[in-house]
């Protein structure tokens, strides 16, 4: 049973929710749309298909304090950071980003469970939004994601000037409880049909991923074309930091003058210091670092997770790579049977 709300009353809904919970939504600031905390003055941009940074930051923030140390002489006091205890709603997540949460779960909720991530997952309600107008950089269809009917605690559709809600989980039922019931669900059905048609036209909608699996690990790893593919790579972290599934992190200490703040922050395997040790690094050139990123997404991760790729086809890397080198290049260049 769906619920509905006129689109122009959405701020009202947000206002009501934000009395008790934080509302995170796609918000425009300094010309760019990113997920941020909604306030009365926020410029809400539900029409923006892709936020620059993905939605993963709601559960796995770019920077997160984990523990604070106070040092006195030879003594150390350890003060672990608090885990999140407040409820929040992340609104307007697209199907691709919603899948990325499931992938992050595989990492952070596998034994041993990460307490900070787990608390955020527990307290967060994910409200997804169907993509009315997928773009040429989208290729979520390759990973079994339905942009017309995304997962999440609640799924929303904007059809005309009405927004429709369908609760999928307990959290979702609680979220939609006070909304009025939709008398007619046919606009949603029509929209879904329409989106499905558009999805068929995606230029990268049907990639051949044969050969990207644990069984072909050595074959993919030893492919001679990696160096050719990586040649233009700048070694920046753009792809990593906009990616919804990249989950590598660094742990660092900051000396505040009175204590030591240990925090973790997103890291990128594209950076030269990623694996640097006192005696050197096992990935000395950009070729190895580049290979690591794509091997992780397309081979190592599926090998450890029943064939599930660590890519959701959001296409952010296609849009943002300064030199236009991205996962499509890799899939097309290295896939087996690509002409078959």
């Amino acid at each position, binding site marked *: 049973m769906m619920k509905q709300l006129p689109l122009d009353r959405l701020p009202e809904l947000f206002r009501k929710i934000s009395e008790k919970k934080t509302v995170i939504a796609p918000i425009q600031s300094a010309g760019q749309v990113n997920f941020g905390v909604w306030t009365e003055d926020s410029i809400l941009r539900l029409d923006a298909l892709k936020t620059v940074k993905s939605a993963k930051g709601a559960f796995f923030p770019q920077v997160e304090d984990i523990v604070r140390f106070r040092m006195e002489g030879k003594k150390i006091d*350890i003060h672990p950071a608090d885990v999140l205890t407040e409820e929040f709603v992340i609104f307007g997540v697209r199907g691709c980003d919603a899948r990325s949460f499931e992938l992050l779960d595989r990492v952070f909720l*596998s034994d041993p469970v990460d307490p900070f991530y787990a608390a955020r997952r527990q307290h967060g309600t994910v409200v997804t939004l169907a993509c009315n107008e997928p773009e040429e950089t989208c290729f979520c269809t390759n990973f079994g994601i339905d942009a017309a009917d995304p997962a999440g605690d609640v799924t929303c559709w904007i059809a005309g000037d009405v927004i429709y809600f369908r609760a999928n989980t307990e959290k979702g039922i609680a979220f939609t409880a006070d909304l009025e019931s939709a008398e007619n669900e046919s606009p949603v059905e029509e929209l879904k049909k329409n989106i499905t048609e558009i999805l068929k036209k995606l230029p990268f909608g049907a990639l051949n991923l044969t050969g990207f699996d644990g069984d072909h690990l050595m074959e993919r790893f030893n492919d001679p074309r990696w160096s050719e593919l990586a040649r233009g790579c700048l070694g920046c972290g753009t792809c990593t930091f906009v990616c919804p599934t990249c989950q590598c*992190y660094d*742990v660092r*200490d900051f000396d505040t003058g009175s204590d030591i703040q240990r925090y973790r922050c997103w890291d990128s395997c594209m950076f030269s210091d990623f*694996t640097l040790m006192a005696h050197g690094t096992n990935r000395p050139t950009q070729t190895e670092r580049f290979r690591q990123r794509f091997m992780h997404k397309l081979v190592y991760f599926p090998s450890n997770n029943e064939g599930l790729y660590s890519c959701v086809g959001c296409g952010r890397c296609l849009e943002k790579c300064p030199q236009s080198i991205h996962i499509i290049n890799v899939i097309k260049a290295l896939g087996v049977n690509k002409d078959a």
Partner: protein
Amino acid sequence: MPDNIIPMLGVVTAIRIDTPDIKTFRVEAVDGGKCFEHMPGQCAMISVPGVGEAMFSITSSPTVKDYQEFSVKKCGCVTEWLHHMDVGQQITIRGPYGRPFPVDTELKGKDLLFIAGGVGLAPLHSVINYVLDNRTDYGAVDIVYGSRSKEDLLDLPEIQSVWADPASKMNVHLTIDREQDGWDGHVGFVPNFVKELDYKPDRTVLVCGPPIMIKFVLEALTEMGFVKTQVYTTMELRMKCGVGKCGRCNIGDKYVCKDGPVFRFDELDELPAEY
């Protein structure tokens, strides 16, 4: 298992100077006793707040009841700091991490051959003492250990007085890289020494040392008729989390911190040679 990100407090209760660049630190919980139980070959993350956190193999055997020891070579920021600290210093520690040597399963009842070079003895030290404390569970035990010089041999007093003691029923073979005054033992590199000792290929081998030594030891063993399923080693790559999440210590689809650090060579064969 303790909380996987937040470390606990440890206190350094003794520091032993082993070689010019290796010290062994004894770590206990603040109110005495071990910080946690471990198995031979497992590691722990030791950190000095403000300096950094690094993974170290636990040198002492689990059979030691009161403390854990870490032999640390001075080579980076954290190790440098550790080398400058005094007894009584608190550090933070979390662990144990990784897959241990299969001391209670595959190694049980086998004739063992330990091959170590330099500070590579540290992770094997734990196994050797575990074997020693459960001596009847294992067959013949041989230890081949080499270093650059006499001074660089780690744990020499213990090797000479305990391991080489006939009561231990272990054969110890030491070697140093170059001739040196006051050294009447073997001179030469470890791989060649192993070949000279001419072991029958029925031993189970545990090897640890610099990568180049491991490479040539493996060649020597293959020449002598050993197969890769008989040889274990322990790996080291940069680590941050220790629990297979931060994503940097992988070799192929395996994480050294979680799926290693102990690997059998046939397992490594199936992985890219990116280490």
